[in-house]
């Protein structure tokens, strides 16, 4: 577990704290929590709950980016898996529904991974193909409608709670731990970082770089599919037109805010998820603030820039001071 904990990440934590504080200012009841029908209720829970899809996406995305790739198709994959889950929900049990939806994500990931690692396409165009076509496939499944369902099992995935914690949040946490355990518990993490850091050198050191690349796209597809199922469960319907729309950009943003370079190499799962939370904390704050929606994007731009500047290696800001202190101690 210690391997999961960030060694860097002070800038991110600081950013989160600052944004939380701003949220508290615009909305005095921001930190209020109470139990509502056996489920925690409050803005903080909203942040976690609404942040779940992007957090899940960023878990897969961070691995893809670590190999120097990028996956633009995650939003479309969300739509596909949501559509499949919603269409099967009322006629099949939850295991079948989940297997089908996650299986679809796996196939999508395999496709992307195949294009990138076997055909050698540039990741951004390779996944652009599925980004465009995938939403079409999702719409094909739903025929452009919002397919609703009432299966209590699936609804529980979106709206239920375990010990007061919303199920999506528990799932995201579970996935974080699972991914962390797989990646850091095996040699996968090292080999992925090596592949992203220098693919040629890693190949020559005997690393199966193609297999690594295939694996991360598959995992990214699965994570996206899970996010899609949760998004569908949340609104008790699959909205193939809008589910996951533009979320790929949020996921990439989360990963970068989490300090992982788009040029591959070192990555941190925890910080990527933290990045997703930072984004959602900002979004929720915007919604609570009561400003007219015309300002949303401006606020977002300013916050993103501020968070990035905080991390800038060139800015001897907070992180620089801390790093220096730590070095002095060492």
């Amino acid at each position, binding site marked *: 577990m210690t391997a999961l904990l960030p060694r860097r990440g002070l800038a991110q934590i600081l950013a989160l704290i600052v944004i939380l504080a701003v949220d508290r200012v615009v909305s005095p009841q921001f930190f209020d929590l109470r139990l509502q029908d056996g489920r925690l209720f409050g803005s903080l829970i909203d942040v976690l709950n609404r942040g779940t899809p992007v957090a899940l996406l960023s878990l897969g995305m961070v691995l893809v980016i670590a190999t120097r790739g990028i996956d633009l198709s995650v939003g479309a994959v969300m739509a596909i898996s949501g559509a499949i889950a919603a269409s099967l929900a009322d006629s099949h049990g939850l295991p079948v529904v989940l297997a089908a939806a996650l299986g679809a994500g796996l196939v999508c990931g395999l496709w992307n991974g195949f294009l990138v690692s076997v055909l050698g396409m540039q990741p951004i165009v390779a996944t652009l193909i599925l980004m465009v076509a995938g939403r079409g496939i999702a719409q094909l499944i739903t025929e452009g409608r919002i397919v609703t369902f009432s299966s209590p099992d699936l609804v529980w995935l979106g709206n239920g709670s375990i010990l007061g914690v919303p199920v999506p949040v528990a799932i995201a946490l579970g996935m974080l731990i699972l991914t962390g355990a797989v990646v850091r518990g095996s*040699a996968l993490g*090292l080999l992925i970082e090596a592949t992203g850091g*220098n693919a040629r050198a890693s190949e020559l*050191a*005997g*690393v*199966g770089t193609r297999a690594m690349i295939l694996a991360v796209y598959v995992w990214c597809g699965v994570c996206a599919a899970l996010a899609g199922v949760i998004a569908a469960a949340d609104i008790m319907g699959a909205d193939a037109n809008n589910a996951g729309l533009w979320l790929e950009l949020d996921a990439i943003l989360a990963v970068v805010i989490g300090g992982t370079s788009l040029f591959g190499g070192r990555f941190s799962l925890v910080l990527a998820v933290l990045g997703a939370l930072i984004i959602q904390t900002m979004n929720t704050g915007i919604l609570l603030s009561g400003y007219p929606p015309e300002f949303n994007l401006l606020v977002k731009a300013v916050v993103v820039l501020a968070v990035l500047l905080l991390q800038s290696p060139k800015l001897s800001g907070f992180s620089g001071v801390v790093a220096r202190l730590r070095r002095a101690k060492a």
Partner: protein
Amino acid sequence: MENSPAPSLLEARGISKSFGAVRALQEVDFTLRAGEIHALLGENGAGKSTLIKAITGVFPRDAGVIRISGEEVAPRSAKAALQAGIATVYQEVNLLPNLSVAQNLFLDRQPMRLGIVREAEMRRRAKALLGGFGLDIDVSAPLGSYSVAVQHVTAIARAVDLSARVLILDEPTASLDRHEVEILFDIMRQLAGRGIGIVFVSHFLDQVYEISDCITVLRNGRLVGQRETASLPRLELIRMMLGRELAETTSVRAATGEHQAREVCASFEGYGKAGYVAPFNLELRHGEVVGLAGLLGSGRTETARLVFGAERADRGQAKVEGEPVRLLSPRDGVRHGFGYCPEERKTDGIVAELTVRENIVLALQAKRGLHRPLSRREQDEIASRYVKMLDIRPPDPERPVGLLSGGNQQKVLLARWLATSPRLLVLDEPTRGIDVGAHAEIIRLIRELCDDGLALLVISSELDEIVTYSDRVVVLRDRAHVDELTGEAIDISNILAAIAADSAVVAHEGRA
């Protein structure tokens, strides 16, 4: 040289530079006079490259002043240094493989007319410029399609042509062969004759004594001293660099003639690839060092890549311990217990961002597979063992390997493969850029490994080095294996004779 001491051209006083906790330079002084060739020497990681970068402003200095002809300058970028009259060839060939050779030579100073680059004129000048270095190549082809040697010559030619007052060359000869070194030295002498001051970094002491007027030695980021070359005995110089005596390690080869008795580790019959290397036969035995000798572009690296599995052969049969095997990828090579230190460590070797520890365990981990991860304790143990064994500096396994000096990166690569306990190790230019101490160390290590039963295939452009440790030497020419020398036959003149057997080929075109 002139008798009266020339005025100081470049003067650096009290230069200090730290990278975090690492104090790379502490109060270093350096004086270069006009018309002087000044060698800057020191062990790997002594701070030579850092001093150069601090002078040219690539790294901001923590302290110190720089004067050119007595006038204080403070370049803050490579461009500013150029404008101040300092032209530099940095250690890692810093050119642009995607641009044409001509563009590389004239980047940012192309001949222009009406805001438009005069391509033809630029190509003409590029051809003429490289011609002066004995290089006759297509200058409109991308630089990346040429060998490292050509790239290095290009970098030098560019710096020379900048007609600056100070020319700094950081290990320019590391990947050049004798002939090119001769040409370079001629040019350096000419430039010095014109009053240009030249700083020359090298680990080849022969070259230092051949060319330099004056020597400055650094050790652990501090100035040890500055001496006239003529009055500095070699052993004294080595003591200055290492801070101790160097044990004489020019060990003789193990008893020769017994190699027939050794067991064959790997053999290649009729092995080759069309358009890459002509089919060859090669037997590598346990406890034996086979050297590959040849000119640049003769196919040594290609042979190494085929043997390791980095390139697929399209004919011939490979056997490991007598069993036929197929080597389709580096993974196959690794699986059969091969290791390969490529010559281009920056692009093919290190993963710059990862730590020394991670770089060292990488091949071993890849060999063990995903499911059997090395625990952190095992990793630490392996890393610290090799850091100590190979004297990697600074001895911090958690340092990103990209921040190490060139020679130390090379040692990390060697450690990576030693950690896999290979049966066959292929070393492509293992001593390139390595200091005298480490050089001796690596040669000793090669012998030791060999005595432990490892089979070694070593490529080196240093013929005396090859002669020192090889039990057998395979000579290549024009991408074909042309001769094999064993036992007493192994000496420099025989190798040269084999290389030059077809003397017409000496004009070398380094195109890959």
